[in-house]
């Protein structure tokens, strides 16, 4: 099965391609024959439950872990054969924070740059640019132990970007970020994709990914289950939550139109139903308003990816 997520044709050797990846840890099969593609110029989400093999896959893509079978190509380069060339092109932000606590943010970025053999003159301005990018200028000369978790996450992102990699692997980048930082992260990732980089993001926060990702690869139990673009995810139908001043009238109106719906628990008298497309949603809202139902809210109940995720999860169990 082809799992090229974004349908856009790419120049050969651009982005990240992994095929037939398997990896065991003793008896545990962490990943089994997984395919993964992250084209250049797009943000690809890696979605799956805990223990699905996301971090293992990212470690293999980052050339830290060798797969038992399968191949990885980073911008067309095999990291097993040309580790230096591959690593120049990969930035990796781990899910663990891992900071040298007594060093300042500026020192950490400088050290990383020197380990990527960046010339000293270029490095200084690069470090300053990145500190500005992740909004850590004010804390740049503080020991990183005083940084909050979210600030350390942002430092970690800057560290992954220090050598301007063509492929960026981010393991749960949004965890621990406050809403403002999340919006900023989203903007940074979109910018990087617009510059032509292949960005891979693993996350649990699916609503977040709807906004960031161009495509998603769903993994479960070590296999890539499904790959789809956000457009495809949106087109497959999506659950909408509707509430009205008079819930009884709303229910009656929906029943009259022969629509299946369910009353959402917990929410104040909201119902939800699955609609095939945004056109369907627009038409239904228009109908309901025309039928004089006093609608107070009408919105997607979850992200498009969440819908896929939940349906996939249901299939698996």
């Amino acid at each position, binding site marked *: 099965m082809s799992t090229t997520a974004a349908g856009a044709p790419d120049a050969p050797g651009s982005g990240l391609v992994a095929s037939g990846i398997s990896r065991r840890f003793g008896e545990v099969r962490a990943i089994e024959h997984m395919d993964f593609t992250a084209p250049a110029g797009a943000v690809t989400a890696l979605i799956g439950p805990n223990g699905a093999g996301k971090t293992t896959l990212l470690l*293999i893509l980052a*050339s*830290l872990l060798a797969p038992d079978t399968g191949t990885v190509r980073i911008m067309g380069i095999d990291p097993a054969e040309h580790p230096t060339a591959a690593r120049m092109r990969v930035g990796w932000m781990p899910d663990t924070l891992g900071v040298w606590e007594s*060093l300042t943010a500026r020192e950490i970025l400088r050290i*990383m740059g020197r*380990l990527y053999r960046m010339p000293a003159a270029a490095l200084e301005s690069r470090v300053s640019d990145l500190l500005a990018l992740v909004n850590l200028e004010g804390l740049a000369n503080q020991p990183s132990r005083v940084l909050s978790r979210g600030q350390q996450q942002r430092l970690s992102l800057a560290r992954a970007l220090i050598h301007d990699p063509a492929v960026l692997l981010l393991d749960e980048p949004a965890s621990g970020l406050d809403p403002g930082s999340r919006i900023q992260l989203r903007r940074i990732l979109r910018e990087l994709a617009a*510059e032509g980089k292949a960005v891979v993001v693993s996350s649990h926060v699916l609503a977040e990914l709807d906004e960031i990702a161009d495509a998603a690869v769903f993994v479960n139990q070590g296999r890539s289950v499904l790959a789809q673009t956000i457009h495809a995810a949106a087109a497959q139908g999506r659950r909408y939550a509707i509430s009205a001043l008079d819930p009884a009238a709303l229910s009656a109106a929906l029943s009259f139109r022969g629509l299946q719906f369910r009353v959402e628990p917990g929410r104040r008298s909201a119902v939800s139903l699955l609609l095939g497309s945004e056109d369907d949603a627009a038409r239904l809202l228009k109908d309901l308003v025309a039928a004089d139902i006093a609608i107070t809210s009408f919105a997607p109940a979850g992200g498009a990816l969440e819908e896929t995720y939940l349906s996939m999860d249901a299939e698996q169990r």
Partner: protein
Amino acid sequence: MTTINPLPADPGPDVSPAPDTSLPAGNYLRPIGVVLMLELRQRLRSRGWYIMLGIWLVVTGAVTFLSWAGWNSSQNYSYIVPDQNPGPGSLIFEIVLAFVLLFALLVAPAFSANAVNGDRSAGTLAILQITLITPGQLVWGKFLASWLVSLAFLVTSAPFLLIGMLLGRMTAAHVLVALLMLAVELAVVCAIGVGISALATRPLFSIVVTYLTVAALVVGTLIAFGLGAMLAQGTIRANTPDYSYSEVYTPEEPRYTCSGDFYDLHVTRTDQVAWMLAMNPYVVVADAIPYPDRSQPNQMIGGMGFLEGISQGARWAIAGPEATTPCANGQVHPGYLRQTVPLWPLGLGLQVVIAGGLMVLGRQALRTPAHRLPRGTRVA
């Protein structure tokens, strides 16, 4: 709004990156320097390190003072003519040296034995591994950092060895050789610690194993030598020594003549197992310290220092019964072995083989992409 300025140079896909190259050796050394700087900076910013250094200074000072005070009080009961009295210098020197070596052996594992797996626990190892640094450079950097940090303790104790020199009989050469050998022993222990820390999963485990390895070198070699000697029995041919009284006694001259019929003498073949003794850090250091001049008469006054004693004992063991038993093969043998052929290169060589082997294994364990992971660990 801030934007990222892309770096100017993006080499083609099949070209390895073009760094600021000057010399191939410089290219290899530079990342080592970065790791070294990274480690040292962290160490110098932790207060605990300075506290330890302060405690070390006070304790070494106390040991020095007590050795001097002890020597002073023993002078009331000394029969040595004041003119010939060598002074407390060599006593202080030997006690301080032995003490510094003891503490070096205790301190060095603490600085080295969690160098790699401590980073792994903190999540900072993979961050280094993802860069262009090679496993060899990483291991070298970690080793040099722990060694330099340990050397700071040695530098702190150097003044007390100098006191030993100023108070008599010891020369600057003694102090230099002592400091050099202590530094080398620290390097051996640090290399062992870094190697084990790269191999073992948990810092606690690698620290314990490193201490046990050091204990094996210090105590284990003695036990192994003793047990080995019990197994290494043999016989040599010897005849009878005839001791005649001599007024003028120089230690290097034999005091007997050999005569009579040869017979089989039951001996312990220490020469077969003494290489284990040679690995002992105390033997290595003691054997490298220059001996006092023993070629003239009456130079055993003041006795043999215990470092000299350790060295002599080990040399007797490695020389074996053929060379030390009176009248073995009808030969006379000196009662004192000169320092012409040193023993310490053998012991140090064996230590370097162990330490180097661990470093090489540690380097293998850090290779990426990693094929095997220690049980229960994550890369990041």
